């Protein structure tokens, strides 16, 4: 958790940032401290190259080479009885080290242990699908492709899952702007009305906190409604909100407050 800092003197040093601040990390422990994990790791090391391994929050983290991800996950499933793939995604480290970090979160029901398999891949490097081992990887890998642009080989249906099929760009990359690039900002206008309509519809208004009471094109002030496009002056008319039109509606008599009776006692 982030340390609490009092907010009453934030203006004192507005430009101060700690250059040598290092994000605190959860402590790591040696794999030998856990019997089950030590046995698993020893079996794993006989067949595959393990780059790094440690225990963090009672879960073993194993770094592997991206080439043998399918075999490692298969080994975990069939030999070490890790029978659930609970999560799978990527982390964007492109700015820092030019790589994606892929992680697979595995769960063993009879060992009651969780293992995280991690690997680094280059930006345009494709990985092997583990969908044949775990069906849950199907949508996770599609989402990983949709959000990060990580290509997955031998996947049965390698298409975008959340964004439309004709979308451009990968929104969860750190380089993607939160409010979208130009393609995203004009997506619905371009698709429905064509590029010519951009001038008529206009750009998106991204400042939702903006209030302009003289703007009668978008919203009218409640109780001071004017026709659309009319010029609003300071002494704009006051239109009290009425539930019924003046004079009443056809076949419906207008309710008059003076002639109506309020029933206080429902049991009368």
């Amino acid at each position: 958790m982030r340390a609490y800092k009092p907010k009453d003197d934030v203006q004192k040093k507005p430009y101060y940032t700690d250059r040598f601040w290092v994000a605190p990390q959860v402590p790591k422990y040696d794999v030998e401290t856990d019997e089950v994990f030590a046995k698993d790791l020893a079996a794993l090391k006989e067949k595959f190259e393990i780059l790094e391994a440690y225990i963090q929050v009672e879960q073993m983290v194993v770094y592997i080479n991206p080439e043998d991800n399918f075999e490692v996950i298969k080994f975990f499933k069939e030999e070490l009885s890790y029978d659930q793939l609970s999560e799978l995604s990527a982390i964007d480290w492109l700015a820092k080290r030019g790589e994606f970090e892929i992680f697979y979160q595995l769960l063993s029901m009879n060992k009651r242990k969780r293992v995280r398999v991690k690997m680094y891949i280059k930006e345009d490097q494709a990985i092997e699908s583990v969908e044949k081992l775990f069906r849950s990887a199907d949508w996770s890998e599609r989402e990983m492709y949709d959000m990060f642009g990580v290509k997955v080989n031998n996947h049965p249906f390698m298409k975008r899952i959340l964004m439309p099929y004709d979308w451009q760009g990968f929104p969860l990359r750190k380089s993607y702007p939160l409010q979208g690039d130009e393609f995203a900002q004009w997506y619905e206008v371009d698709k429905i009305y064509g590029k010519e309509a951009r001038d008529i519809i206009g750009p998106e208004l991204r400042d939702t906190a903006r209030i302009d009471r003289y703007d009668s094109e978008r919203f009218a002030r409640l109780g001071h409604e004017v026709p659309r496009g009319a010029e609003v002056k300071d002494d704009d008319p006051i239109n009290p909100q009425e539930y019924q039109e003046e004079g009443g509606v056809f076949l419906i008599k207008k309710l008059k407050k003076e002639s109506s009776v309020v029933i206080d006692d429902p049991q009368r």
Partner: protein
Amino acid sequence: MAQHKVNYAQDGGLPVALTTIDKVVNWGRSNSLWALTYGLACCGIEMMASGASRYDFDRFGTIFRASPRQSDVMIVAGTLTKKHAEFIKRLYDQMTEPRWVISMGSCANTGGMFNTYATVQGVDRVIPVDLYLPGCAPRPETLQYGVMLLQQKIRAQKAGRAQKPKRLI
């Protein structure tokens, strides 16, 4: 024998109401506003609550229809994503004229808190809107009041003519 209790001395001696075609047509239109079921997000829950027995939209003649071809008013209740924008336009085009649109809640009005790449910043970028309801989410009373305002708007219109296009494109 039926008991004839019509008072022929009242209203000029005739059991007749005099009015105009406009008023009759608008009376019919405004009191049978069938709404397209269009719950996109949490505002849809409030819309369903308005339709259920406690708030009872049927009193206003508003019945939710699952087909755009049977509905007069589209209540856009919730966040419109960019992926869905083309479908809302298609459904709006499938509605028969005259048709009206109520934009319900902050997300449908302006995009609301979803100031992101994937949300349409106001449903009026795609289809013309008659009524904007503020709130996150608006209470069922707000939606009822909105429907009553729309009824007032319909009654103020000319019934006979084709509706003017509400937007240039």
